[in-house]
């Protein structure tokens, strides 16, 4: 039989390895025994130990001692401490799962708390922006602010105006399409930072038809894309780019000044 290569610690463990499998409760001991099992030396050691244990079991015991000597009367059940419960792999796995679920839930709640009317549509349009190619748009080279008239004249889209903060940026192209809910959406591609603008109808109360308006700029994020949205006259404008909020902030700040 081939002699297995064992580390010093494994050799030490093997020399005092229990001769019954059920007594091996320690992982390091189990690993050492697993490796040593293949050697003849270990087989002989185990045979020796079993024979000695068998002989010791034959030790005559006076009846008055024998009636006491059961495991139930000599060994107290192991005590379950908080530490043993906490280090139980099943408890640990449940704990980690609960923490992950709670984190995701908290993240979603935080996200919803900072939401604004039309945020869901804005996120969908960010996904559209990430998959759009410039060839999909009609080439139009002008200032973004000038496209409001085009949308009104050509597509009968009233108030589809680019806000002054972004009106001076040069365009590459534009298009008008219907989203999943049949709303008319205008998309503009500008040269600067390969930004895309979207104009879409603001969210309305289904009963009264009143617009859920908000006056200030709101940020929205989706899969590495960031948008900044504002509502005016029942139409939302969103400037979107691949990147972070800080890349859009200068445009908004410039307008405030």
């Amino acid at each position, binding site marked *: 039989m081939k002699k297995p290569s064992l580390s010093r610690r494994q050799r030490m463990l093997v*020399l005092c390895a229990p001769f019954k499998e059920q007594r091996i409760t320690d992982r390091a001991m189990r690993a050492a025994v697993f490796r040593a099992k293949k050697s003849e030396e270990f087989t002989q050691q185990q045979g020796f*130990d079993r024979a000695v*244990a068998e002989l*010791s079991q034959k*030790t005559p015991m006076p009846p008055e001692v024998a009636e006491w000597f059961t495991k139930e009367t000599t060994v107290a059940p192991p005590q379950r401490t908080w530490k043993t419960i906490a280090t139980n792999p099943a408890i640990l796995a449940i704990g980690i799962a609960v923490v992950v679920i709670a984190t995701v839930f908290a993240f979603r709640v935080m996200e919803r708390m900072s939401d604004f009317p039309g945020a869901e549509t804005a996120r969908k349009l960010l996904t559209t922006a990430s998959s759009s190619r410039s060839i999909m748009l009609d080439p139009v080279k002008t200032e973004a602010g000038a496209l409001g008239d085009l949308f009104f004249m050509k597509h009968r889209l009233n108030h589809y105006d680019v806000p002054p903060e972004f009106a001076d940026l040069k365009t590459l192209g534009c298009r008008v399409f219907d989203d999943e809910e049949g709303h008319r959406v205008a998309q503009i591609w500008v040269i600067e930072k390969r930004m895309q603008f979207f104009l879409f109808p603001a969210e309305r109360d289904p009963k009264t038809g009143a617009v859920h308006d908000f006056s200030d700029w709101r940020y929205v994020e989706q899969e590495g894309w960031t948008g900044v949205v504002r509502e005016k006259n029942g139409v939302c404008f969103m400037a979107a780019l691949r990147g972070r909020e800080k890349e859009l902030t200068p445009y908004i700040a410039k307008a405030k000044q």
Partner: protein
Amino acid sequence: MMGDPIKAQEIFQATMHEAALRAAQGELPKDRWWLFRDARGRCLEASEAGIQAEDVEMEEHEIASWAPEQIARLEPEQLAIWIAGAPEPQRSALAFFYLDHFDHKDLLDLIELKPAEFSKHVANGRQQFQGWLNATFPHESA
């Protein structure tokens, strides 16, 4: 541990008496191996008071494949006397190890030895016992 059934029975009864007293007073220790620990302590006390074994260096032999046959020829009392004659803490290590009642961690906790020390005592004891077996029941190829 004692190699003497009468002394062993006295120690066992004293331990059980102590356990009964403590139980009656509601003071049973939290240590699950208390009974074994207490019995071992009493054995050590009794051994110190009695005749001490000579400190003899025992011959160590490699474990032989025919060792189980040699061991089968022994009487349990012979094994008990041999283990009882081993010096502490090797005696406790061998006695508890072959009692086949504890896992590795429990053994270390009970005998209060470091893993390397425990391993050394068990391994040396095994080889010394093999040496004694070879001397007692010589094998043709031994």
